[in-house]
C-alpha cells in the first residue's frame, strides 16, 4: 500500500494520489484495498460516525469561542480534520494507547473524554488536560514530533509484555521534517514494534505549505524505512477508518509498524493566535469547503435515504449539549492555590525544591490575608 512516486505539485494532484471510499459528493467508489476493512459498517454506524464528527466540530467551535471570550489562553482548532480523527480513533481498541500532538480533539473525544478534559491545559490550569491512564492517551504534545518516539518506546514495552495492544501516534505534515519522527520510524522498523503512525497532512504548518516539508507524498517515505504505508483521503471518514483498521491489524498481528498519511485540510487557523489570511488564498479554503468531511458523509446518507432532517436536528442538539457542558466545566474550574506551583516536580523529596517551597510559603504567610 504505497503511493506512486510522483512529486506533489498541487492539491488536486495530491488528492488524486490518495485512497478513498466516499467521493466528495458523497457517492461511494469501489476500493478493493480498503473496502474489506469496512464491510461491516452499516448505515447505523455511518450515522454514528456522522454524529461524532458533528459533535466534534461543535466542541471545536466552542473551544474557539471560549478562547475569544478570554476563557482559554489558546485553542488549536481541528475544523476540517474531523474525518481523519474520528475515522482513525473509532478503529482503536480501548487498551490501545495514543500519543497525540496538540490538535487531536477528536481523538480525545473518541477516547471518552469528560467535558473538562478538552480545556484543562488550554485554560492554563494543568500541564495535562486529562488523566492518561483513564483515556489511554498521553498528554497533548506541543514539541513537534516528540511524541512519536514515545509511542515507539511504549510499543517496545507492549512487545516485551507479549500483549496484542498497539501504540498509536498522531502528528502533522510539519512534524515529518523533525528528526524525532524519522528516528521513531527507524526504531519502529528496527524492532518491528507494534506502532501505528498517523500523519494528518492538513497542508499547512502554520504558514508553511506542505511542499516546504516534502516534495514527495509523505506516505511514500515510510516504505524507505521498511514500514508499509497507505495514503488516504483524510476527509473521507470511511477511508480513514478502513486504513486505520488495516494498520492496527498489521501492528496487532506482529507484523510491525504501519503508517497512514491522511490528506486533509486545516480549515481554521493554526491556533487562535494565528491569522491564515496572511498566507493562504480564500479560493483554496473554498475548494476545501467543497470537500468537507461532514457534508460528504451527510450527502451519502441522505442519498441513501438513511438520514432525516430530524436526525440532523437531534445530533445538533446533542452537540450543543456537549458544548454547553464543556463551557460549564471550563468556567467552573477552580485554580489551584499558590503552593501548587511546586506540586509534582519530583516523585520523591528534593531538598533544594523543598526549601524553595518552604521559603515561598513563609513569604506568602507574611501577607495578612494569606493567598
Amino acid at each position, binding site marked *: 500500500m504505497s503511493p506512486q512516486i510522483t512529486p506533489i505539485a498541487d492539491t488536486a494532484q495530491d488528492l488524486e494520489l490518495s485512497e478513498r471510499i466516499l467521493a466528495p459528493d458523497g457517492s461511494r467508489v469501489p476500493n478493493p484495498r480498503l473496502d474489506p476493512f469496512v464491510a461491516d459498517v452499516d448505515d447505523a454506524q455511518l450515522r454514528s460516525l456522522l454524529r461524532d464528527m458533528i459533535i466534534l466540530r461543535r466542541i471545536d467551535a466552542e473551544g474557539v469561542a471560549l478562547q475569544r471570550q478570554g476563557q482559554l489562553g489558546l485553542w488549536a482548532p481541528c475544523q476540517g480534520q474531523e474525518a481523519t480523527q474520528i475515522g482513525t480513533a473509532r478503529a482503536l481498541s480501548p487498551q490501545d*494507547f495514543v*500519543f497525540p500532538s496538540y490538535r487531536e480533539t477528536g481523538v480525545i473525544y473518541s477516547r471518552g473524554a469528560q467535558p473538562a478534559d478538552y480545556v484543562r491545559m488550554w485554560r492554563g490550569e*494543568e*500541564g*495535562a488536560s486529562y*488523566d*492518561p*491512564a483513564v483515556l489511554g492517551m*498521553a*498528554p497533548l504534545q506541543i*514539541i513537534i514530533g*516528540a511524541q*512519536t*518516539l*514515545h*509511542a*515507539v*518506546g*511504549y*510499543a*517496545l*514495552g*507492549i*512487545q*516485551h*509484555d507479549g500483549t496484542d495492544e498497539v*501504540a498509536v501516534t498522531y502528528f502533522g505534515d510539519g512534524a515529518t521534517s523533525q*528528526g*524525532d519522527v524519522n*528516528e*521513531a520510524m*527507524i*526504531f519502529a522498523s*528496527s*524492532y518491528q514494534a507494534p506502532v501505528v503512525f498517523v500523519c494528518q497532512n492538513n497542508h499547512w504548518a502554520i504558514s508553511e505549505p506542505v511542499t516546504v516539508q516534502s516534495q514527495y507524498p509523505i506516505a511514500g517515505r515510510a516504505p524507505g524505512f521498511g514500514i508499509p504505508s497507505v495514503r488516504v483521503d483524510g476527509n473521507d471518514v470511511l477511508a480513514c477508518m478502513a486504513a486505520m483498521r488495516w494498520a492496527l491489524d498489521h501492528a496487532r498481528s506482529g507484523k510491525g509498524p504501519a503508517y497512514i498519511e491522511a490528506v486533509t485540510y486545516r480549515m481554521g487557523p493554526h491556533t487562535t493566535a494565528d491569522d491564515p489570511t496572511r498566507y493562504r488564498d480564500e479560493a483554496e479554503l473554498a475548494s476545501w469547503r467543497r470537500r468537507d468531511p461532514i457534508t460528504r458523509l451527510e450527502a451519502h446518507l441522505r442519498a441513501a435515504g438513511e438520514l432525516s432532517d430530524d436526525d440532523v436536528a437531534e445530533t445538533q442538539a446533542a452537540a450543543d449539549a456537549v458544548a454547553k457542558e464543556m463551557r460549564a466545566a471550563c468556567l467552573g474550574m477552580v485554580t489551584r492555590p499558590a503552593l501548587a506551583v511546586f*506540586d*509534582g*516536580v*519530583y*516523585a*520523591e523529596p*528534593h*531538598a*533544594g*525544591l523543598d*526549601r524553595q517551597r518552604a521559603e515561598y510559603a513563609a513569604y506568602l504567610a507574611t501577607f495578612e490575608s494569606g493567598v
Partner: protein
Amino acid sequence: MTLGKALGAGLRRAMQDDDKVVLLGEDIGRLGGVFRITDGLLDEFGAARVIDTPLAESGIVGTAVGLAFRGYRPVVEIQFDGFVYPAFDQIVAQVAKLHYRTQGRVKMPLTIRIPWAGGIGAAEHHSESPEAYFVHTAGLRVVAVSNPQDAYRSLRQAIASDDPVIFFEPKRLYHHKGEVELDAPLADAPPMGLARVVRAGTDATLITYGAMVSTALQAAEAAEDEGISLEVIDLRSLSPVDYDSVAASVRKTGRVVVAHEASREAGVAAEVIASITERCFEYLESAPLRVTGHDVPYPPAKLEKYHLPDLDRLLDAVDRVLDRPNSLTGADA
C-alpha cells in the same frame, strides 16, 4: 573492583532485582559498550532487556520515555558526554516535565548514564562536562560518582528512584580500583542526595565532585605537608545539592574553594557559592573561590592539561582563600 566493573555490577543487580529494568544504548549488547560497562549483560538478560539501539540519541531517550509510560524502568547509556546534546530536547522538555505536567500520574524513572568529562586525551566531543545544563533543569536529579563503592550503590539508587536521574560517570576513573561491598543492603547506603566529607579538616573547605575528588584529596595531602588542614567534600549529588553538609563544613572552616572541570560561567560552582553566601555569609573569612575549566570549548587533547583544574591550581586557590602567600611563588595573596 574498578569503578567500571562496579557500575556493571550495579546494573546487573538492578536488573536482577526488578524485571522492569531495561537497558538501551549504542553498542551495549555484544560489545558490552565502548567502555564495557554492560559487558556480559546481554548474555545474562537477553536482547529484550539489553537493547542495542540505532545511532540516534534523541531516539534512545524518547524511546525510553515511552517505555516509562508503559511501566518500565529504562537505563539509557549515552555513549559519550558530548553525544547527549541531540537528546537534549527529550531530556529537558519531556523526561524532566512529564511528572509535573501530569501531577505525578506519569512517572519517569529513567536513569541516563553519561560517561563524562576529560583527562583521557580523547577526540573532540568526548570530554565534555555538561552537568550544569541538567542541574538547571527542574524535574531532573543529577548524580556524579567518584569511586567504585559509590558508583555501585548510587547507580542502583538512581534506577530505583521514581524520578529521572542524569548519572555522570567520570570516565578517567573507570579503571580506578576500590573496595565494593556488593551485598550490603541498599537501604543502609547513604541516600543518593547526600554529600560526603571524604577528608575532615579545619582550615578551609574544598568542594568538588566526580574525578576531581581524587585531585582534591591529593591537594589536601600536599597542603597537610605545609600544615594546612583541608576538608574535602564530595558533593555526589548536584541536584539536589546537600547544602546542610556543605554549610556545616563552611561554618567550621570559614573558607571555601569549589572546583570542577566544567567551565565557569553559570556553572555548578557559581550556584554552590551563591548558596553558601546566602546561608553562611557571616561565617565566611574570605571570598569563596572557584577553580574550574576555562570558558572555552573543550580544547584539543594536547591542551587539556591547561584547561583542567589540577593540584597546583587547587592549592593556589587554597592559598588565596587562606590569605597566605602563594605556596609555589611566594607572592602575597
